[in-house]
């Protein structure tokens, strides 16, 4: 229950509409396109309504980030319940529109302290959620070390994010070779039971 606030209620459909419109604008045209006027036009609402729900644009950016994090954690948890959670995690981070929005938020966080603290905390939370899910899965496949789950998580998240950011730009040197390698690596997690080949091909034991 929101009380004693002079701004619009958090559960309002209008507020959600504004956040969704802002997310779209940000992903498609960049953070600088998210102005009160453009946002109102894009949501089909009056400009005054933007400030009725969000005191400042920073409040709006923070709210977008909160929503992205909430959705990420839900999606990641669901991905981890599938047969090949590593593949599901890779697919989740490789979605171009979602990646574009996250890249925009990360760039914004570089210049806005309030957002930076929140991004830092949420990245830690997301990494912990992923690692604990991956750890549970890998244990069931015969790999008990938590450090291995951490390595799988960082490798999957970093590399998928990097490749999709280049793919959006249209810079794809070596992507075919890399995708083939990744596909082969992900395939080892298909099926069930103990993994039958080294987790890290070619690495010294």
């Amino acid at each position: 229950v929101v009380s004693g606030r002079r701004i619009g209620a958090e559960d309002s459909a209008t507020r959600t509409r504004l956040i969704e419109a802002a997310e779209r604008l940000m992903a498609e045209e960049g953070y600088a396109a998210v102005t009160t006027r453009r946002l109102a036009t894009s949501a089909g609402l009056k400009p005054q309504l933007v400030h009725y729900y969000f005191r400042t644009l920073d409040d709006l950016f923070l709210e977008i980030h909160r929503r992205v994090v909430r959705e990420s954690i839900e999606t990641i948890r669901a991905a981890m319940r599938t047969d090949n959670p590593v593949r599901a995690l890779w697919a989740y981070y490789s979605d171009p529109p979602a990646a574009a929005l996250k890249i925009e938020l990360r760039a914004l966080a570089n210049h806005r302290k309030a957002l930076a603290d929140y991004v830092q905390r949420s990245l830690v939370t997301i990494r912990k959620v992923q690692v604990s899910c991956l750890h549970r899965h890998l244990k069931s496949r015969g790999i008990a070390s938590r450090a291995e789950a951490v390595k799988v998580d960082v490798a999957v998240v970093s590399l998928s994010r990097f490749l999709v950011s280049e793919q959006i730009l249209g810079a794809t040197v070596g992507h075919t070779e890399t995708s083939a390698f990744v596909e082969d690596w992900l395939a080892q997690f298909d099926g069930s039971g103990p993994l039958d080949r080294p987790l890290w091909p070619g690495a010294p034991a």
Partner: protein
Amino acid sequence: MISRRLGKEDSATRSKLLDAAEALMVEEGYAAVTSRQVAKRAGLKNQLVHYYFRTMDDLFLAMLKRIEEGDLGRLKAAMVAENPIRALWAFSSDPKGAALILELWVLGNHRKPFRRHIAQYMTRLRKRQVKHLARFFEGRTPEPEALALLVANLVVGVSRPLVGETAIGMGEGHGEILSLFEAYAGRFDPPG
């Protein structure tokens, strides 16, 4: 259209303006890079910005060109190292470079015609990295070029996002992935 005289490319003032624009990009974002702000940051008059750059797009292009020249120079110096795989990891982990590249990426999302230039820059840089690695793999593997394409993407692709995380104080998991990288990279260390 009457062509207007522009300031020389090697002028110290021009490079001061580009320094100011880069600093603004990193600290405040591309939206803060206006002729007024750039001039103010450089401690110069507004009109000077347009004496050196016809439009702000030209300024962004000049910035990108300078970044590429710097990168290619640093890369060439780095890749003569005994272990170019470690050198490439270090090269792509430069924190200043990472923040600027991220900001150029979002600038390209906002100004779509600019996106092509960033893609071309990244393509040329990756090709150069691949060329250096392929030369190193020559004689060690049947297909040096294919291995170089893969290794360049794995090394840059895993290390680059970590720099952005470090920049905002997130280091969770970095030690583990670094030890995995060390295990791979160590195989190419010179003996002794």
